[in-house]
């Protein structure tokens, strides 16, 4: 296809903590190697023996259906043994007790730990603490690297020559690990990123590292190739950042009228799920032919398989 096929495989890393610490070569490799894994899904036997005899622990301290099941399916398709652990989902589970839990789980000789936690930096803490490979499945507001990989993979599927293309991320930019990781990966791949959202949900102060649009009119004027809606997460908000969900929908949501404009422009639509119908997205947009939302879910399994395949656990217990 291209000369890229001859490029050497970048040396494996132990952990996948965020996108910022991946090089462009590493990202390109992960995206490229996800392709063949996705091809497998069309076969009657979807499994490969790559991780036979290896164990994967899914450690979720925050509720999650999509991400945890996606990691589970990915690991099983790699023939790994999977243990799912939904630990207490209260906010009082601090890093110290996570380390205690992991110490206990060391006895299982787990090779890969997939972790989601409310507190930013917990995966980094674990990575320094254990020989197992750590896959960050979302830590606080910090990072969600496999989401970013699946987003980039999905974007590339419909727009293969992505350099110089444009994407707008709409919603709670401040509290979104998806916005952080996904904008980082698109920036690294040469895709232009802009954001739209209520003022209090945009990173404050000197935030000139972010291109901010101020309305949907601006969004359409900017002619993005894709619009990426974020879930408006009321459960994160213990203080008020905007007056009401109704008002959010009116000002920042993809309303019927805006959806018509979007569809007429042929702009792709993305969302990390699960969606809040009637808040960030109007019902009818769910059936949009250029919606990539279901494709994102499917691709999530492929990129997670690619990540598991590439990472290499350490040899020594710490």
């Amino acid at each position, binding site marked *: 296809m291209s000369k890229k096929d001859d490029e050497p495989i970048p040396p494996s890393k132990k952990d996948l903590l965020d996108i*910022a610490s991946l090089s462009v070569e590493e990202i390109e490799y992960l995206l490229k190697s996800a392709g063949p894994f996705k091809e497998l899904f069309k076969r009657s036997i979807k499994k490969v023996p790559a991780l036979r005899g290896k164990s994967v622990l899914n450690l979720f301290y925050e509720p999650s259906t999509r991400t945890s099941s996606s990691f589970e399916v990915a690991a099983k398709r790699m023939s790994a043994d999977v243990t799912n652990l939904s630990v207490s989902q209260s906010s009082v589970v*601090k*890093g*110290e007790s*996570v*380390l205690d839990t992991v110490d206990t789980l060391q006895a299982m000789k787990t090779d890969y730990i997939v972790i989601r*936690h409310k*507190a*930013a*930096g*917990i995966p*980094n*803490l674990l990575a320094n603490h254990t020989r197992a490979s750590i896959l960050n499945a979302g*830590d*606080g*507001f*910090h*990072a969600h690297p496999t989401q970013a990989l699946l987003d980039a993979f999905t974007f590339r599927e419909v727009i293969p020559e992505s350099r110089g293309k444009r994407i707008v991320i709409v919603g709670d930019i*401040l509290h979104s*690990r998806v916005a*952080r990781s996904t904008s980082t990966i698109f920036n690294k791949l040469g895709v232009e990123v802009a954001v739209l959202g209520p003022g209090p949900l945009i*990173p*404050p*102060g*000197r*935030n000139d*590292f972010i291109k901010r649009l101020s309305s949907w009119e601006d969004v359409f004027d900017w002619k993005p190739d894709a619009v990426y809606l974020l879930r408006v997460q009321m459960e994160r908000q213990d*203080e008020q950042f905007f007056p009401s969900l109704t008002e959010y929908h009116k000002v920042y949501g993809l309303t019927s009228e805006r959806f018509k404009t979007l569809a007429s422009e042929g702009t792709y639509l993305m969302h990390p799920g699960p969606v809040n119908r009637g808040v960030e997205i109007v019902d009818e947009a769910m059936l949009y032919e250029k919606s990539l939302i279901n494709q994102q879910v499917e691709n999530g399994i492929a990129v997670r398989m690619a990540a598991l395949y590439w990472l290499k656990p350490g040899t020594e217990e710490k």
Partner: protein
Amino acid sequence: MSKRLFKNGQIASEDSPKLIESDVLVDDGKITQIARGISADGAEEIDCSGCVLMPSMFDGHVHAREPGEDHKETIESCSEAAINGGVTGLILMPNTLPAIDNGNLIQSVLDIAAEKSRIPILQAGCITKNRAGEELAGIAGMAAKGAPVLTDDGNPVDSPVVLRRAIEYAMDFDLPLASHCETKSLSGKGAMNEGAVSYRLGLPGMPAMSEEICLERDIRIAQYTGGHIHIQHVSTAIGMNAIRRAKEDGIRVTCEVAPHHLIFNQEDIGNYDANFKMNPPLRTEEDNEALLQGLIEGVFDVIATDHAPHTHFEKANDFGSAPFGITGLETAVVSLYHHYIRNGRFGWDLLVKRYSAEPRRLAKADPIAINEGFDADFIVFETNATTEFSLEFMRSKSGNTPFIDKTLNGQIRKVVRHDALLLDR
């Protein structure tokens, strides 16, 4: 009774950046002679070639954690840490468990100190009962027991009217109020300075204005009442400049800067290292430079470390859950030498003035100096040696410092106080 002769050292003072080469004779705890080429019969000779002799330091902002949290630190370990860092006078903050909010509690701390500490210790009292910001604490009783200052340190006094009444009442006892400036509703659950770095790390931020708004309010209350407000651990250039203007206007405001706010900034947090987490948080590189200029220009009355020990277990938490605070007593002098004196950013006189002389004056403690007739109370500091801040080096019970396992230039060789050689290495 002993006689010690410190030979060939260079003497620093608050009055001049110039060091004076001289011998110092200490007899029975008093400095009896300062001259070149002293010879004294029966004196133990201590060679101080390559060393600077300077008055011992005084730290006006220290958390000894006793009573209540002696797994982190005790008055004994805290005083030993101070000696290890060349500090021979402390003001302990009252945010212990229970909070020190009456005269009896002050007395109980002083009783422990009398038994366990080899250096004099002063205990600050609370402004309000249990630091709750509501009812005034037993101020007269605390004043009678020698509290040098009142503070709810760790908490601001949220209510302006409570702070107003407190400052008016404290004036009757000639006591300053020390203020931890923070607007709690703005800091929220913040774990570090709010800005590009907190965004990148996904950590909740504390905006600089949280500190600055409270600081401006406190200055205004001091101006209106005529009382004395002391602003603790100023971390932003804007806050410092507000104090500078207030001083020019003749308002009774004093302030302190912590070494970590000069040396480090938010970028140093790196990979979620909780040894860089404190409140107020590390700000920006521009703030570092502005605060340093302010220190050189005399905006800051004193340097104080906000020595805040926490155990390794507590700090080995995720950054957001780890407690605020780092230790400072053992690293302050060496780190200030390493970062600023060694390369000429400021002189020895600044260190002596801002970390020894002025804090003693503010606390109304007895003045010390390396002068004939004074009690001996000085440090011997070797400039060409280095200090490795290993856990073994630390005498604090906690090692939560950004300098842990770092090696810096300069070493405190001796700490002399009266007749005792408190530290000798």
